[in-house]
């Protein structure tokens, strides 16, 4: 199934502004494409009727001369189904929230609407965003458009497939340990994890609250940047959202010159287990930057190899607390019982295997006698990971690494080996633990082999807090230099 060709979000909004096309026809095309790529299972629900009505309203606003206030006029957007869109489902890929209807819009959704974007549907994910393949969805896996026998990555697999499959130019995902960047790398799209606090978490269902952040998926760097500009900024509904002013992130990216930029190259990210084709892609990207006048600087991030171990203390501890609320009382699914404690047990039996595993692990590391050894130690090493980055960013403007150790793997390959699945996120989790922004962008494909076809490769850029603009500038340069996918 080849990705369709559709205009970028930026081009589409310009065409809607100029009345060369309409929001209604853009939404109609996206809904039609969603039907065509249905076998990839990107969507859990489509908002056909609501999306058409909202598109008609956007067209009216453009006709009334409001185009300047609508930077995403008529742009169809797909949204991960753990972000609330009022009046429709937010299942989180779980039986526990299957009957739930969102009573409000997440702040990111409200901002998309104000900007003229139209949410056409809610996308598949690993249950409660816990997974790296979208195989943990209670409603079945999504599939990689480049090879439907392979995973698209996860947990924001559906959102990335909606973009890679040519249905929408931009989508929202969420990150706790790499859940936007990893599937973006696997499917050949751009994926962004903003600085912690850059985007309001209001209306994003909580997983690991000190790590969670809504991110953008784009078919181009400019689109991912444009969508982030719209959704970023402080919000009274989220005390951890940052008051830091939001820069225009997408305008003039083509004018940026990499000459004189200092790019960090951390040895810890190029060790054993890295696919040779992905190493070669990172070296090629590095060499293009160097040829354009960037300075390549070797840096050390000595605690990054502990990232997964830290993640599986901190994230699961927070997850087990956050998931305690699914007790069948105030919302979602309830298993009937004539006794309260058995109602809790039977209701929570609807969690999938990975959810139970993480709740068990999280409860274990927080339990009496183990708290200091696991959670206490985890938070201390997390601070060292952050300190490593602060040291490195004294000397460099951005750090270049692979996004994933391997390209997309076959569906089912890691399903019985949770640790192997977790290790997929080895290059992405550190940015979440440190709270810093990071981007994955496509850089060609692996050579075809007898055991696997050519598959997309992602290279990652990480930067200091609130340096999204600089990351987008470097990413845009690399996007122009990248080999044809």
């Amino acid at each position, binding site marked *: 199934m080849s990705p369709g060709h559709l205009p970028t979000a930026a081009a589409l909004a310009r065409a809607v502004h100029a009345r060369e096309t309409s929001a209604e026809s853009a939404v109609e095309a996206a809904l039609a494409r969603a039907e065509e790529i249905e076998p990839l299972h990107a969507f859990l629900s489509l908002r056909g009727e609501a999306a058409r009505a909202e598109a008609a309203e956007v067209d009216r606003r453009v006709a009334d001369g409001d185009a300047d206030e609508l930077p995403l006029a008529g742009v169809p957007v797909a949204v991960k189904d753990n972000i609330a869109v009022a009046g429709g489902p937010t299942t989180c890929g779980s039986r526990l929230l299957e009957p739930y209807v969102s009573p409000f819009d997440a702040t990111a959704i409200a901002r998309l609407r104000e900007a003229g974007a139209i949410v056409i549907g809610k996308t598949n994910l690993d249950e409660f965003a816990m997974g790296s393949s979208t195989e943990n969805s209670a409603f079945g896996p999504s599939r990689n458009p480049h090879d439907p026998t392979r995973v698209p990555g996860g947990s924001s697999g559906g959102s990335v497939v909606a973009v890679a499959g040519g249905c929408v130019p931009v989508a929202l995902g969420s990150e706790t340990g790499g859940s936007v960047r990893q599937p973006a790398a696997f499917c050949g799209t751009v994926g962004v994890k903003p600085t912690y606090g850059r985007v309001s978490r209001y209306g994003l269902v909580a997983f690991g609250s000190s790590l969670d952040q809504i991110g953008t998926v784009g078919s181009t760097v400019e689109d991912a940047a444009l969508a982030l500009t719209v959704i970023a900024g402080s919000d009274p509904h989220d005390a951890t959202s940052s008051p830091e002013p939001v820069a225009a992130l997408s305008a003039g990216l083509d004018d940026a010159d990499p000459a004189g930029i200092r790019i960090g190259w951390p040895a810890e990210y190029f060790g054993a287990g890295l696919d040779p084709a992905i190493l070669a892609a990172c070296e090629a990207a590095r060499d293009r930057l160097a040829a354009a006048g960037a300075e390549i600087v070797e840096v050390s991030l000595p605690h990054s190899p502990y990232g997964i171990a830290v993640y599986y203390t901190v994230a699961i501890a927070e997850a087990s607390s956050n998931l305690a609320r699914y007790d069948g009382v105030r919302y979602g699914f309830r298993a009937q019982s*004539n006794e309260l404690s058995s109602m809790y047990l039977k209701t929570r039996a609807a969690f999938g295997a990975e959810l139970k595993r993480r709740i068990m692990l999280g409860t274990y590391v927080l339990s009496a006698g183990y708290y200091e050894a*696991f959670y206490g130690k985890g938070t201390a090493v997390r*601070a060292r990971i952050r300190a490593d980055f602060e040291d490195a960013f004294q000397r460099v403007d951005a750090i270049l690494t692979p996004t994933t150790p391997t390209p997309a793997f076959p569906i089912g390959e890691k399903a019985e080996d949770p640790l192997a699945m977790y290790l997929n996120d080895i290059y992405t989790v550190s940015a979440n633990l440190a709270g810093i922004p990071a981007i994955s962008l496509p850089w060609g494909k692996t050579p075809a082999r007898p055991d696997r076809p050519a598959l997309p490769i992602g290279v990652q850029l990480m930067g200091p807090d609130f340096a999204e603009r600089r990351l987008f500038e470097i990413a845009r340069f690399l996007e122009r230099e990248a080999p044809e996918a």
Partner: protein
Amino acid sequence: MTVSPEDVRHIARLARLELTDEEVERFRRELSTILAYVEKLEQLEPGSAPEPGKPDQPLRQDTLAEWPDVTPLHEAAPDFEAGFFRVPRVIE
């Protein structure tokens, strides 16, 4: 790190999860493997770690705001009546 079946049952009780015997055995095995991996943190020397960062954001005013329509919140509950979330009998 080895986790016993009794550990697994104890943790499951704390987490309000009901496990089959098969699940107890599977989680015993998987938790042992994952916790053994996490134990690599123990290799690091203690003491030199900086304190975890503290949020430095100003808190907003704690003012009352009206929710426009509470009906959808009530309708989200499996069993809601007369201003209450109804649950099975707690006290005999």
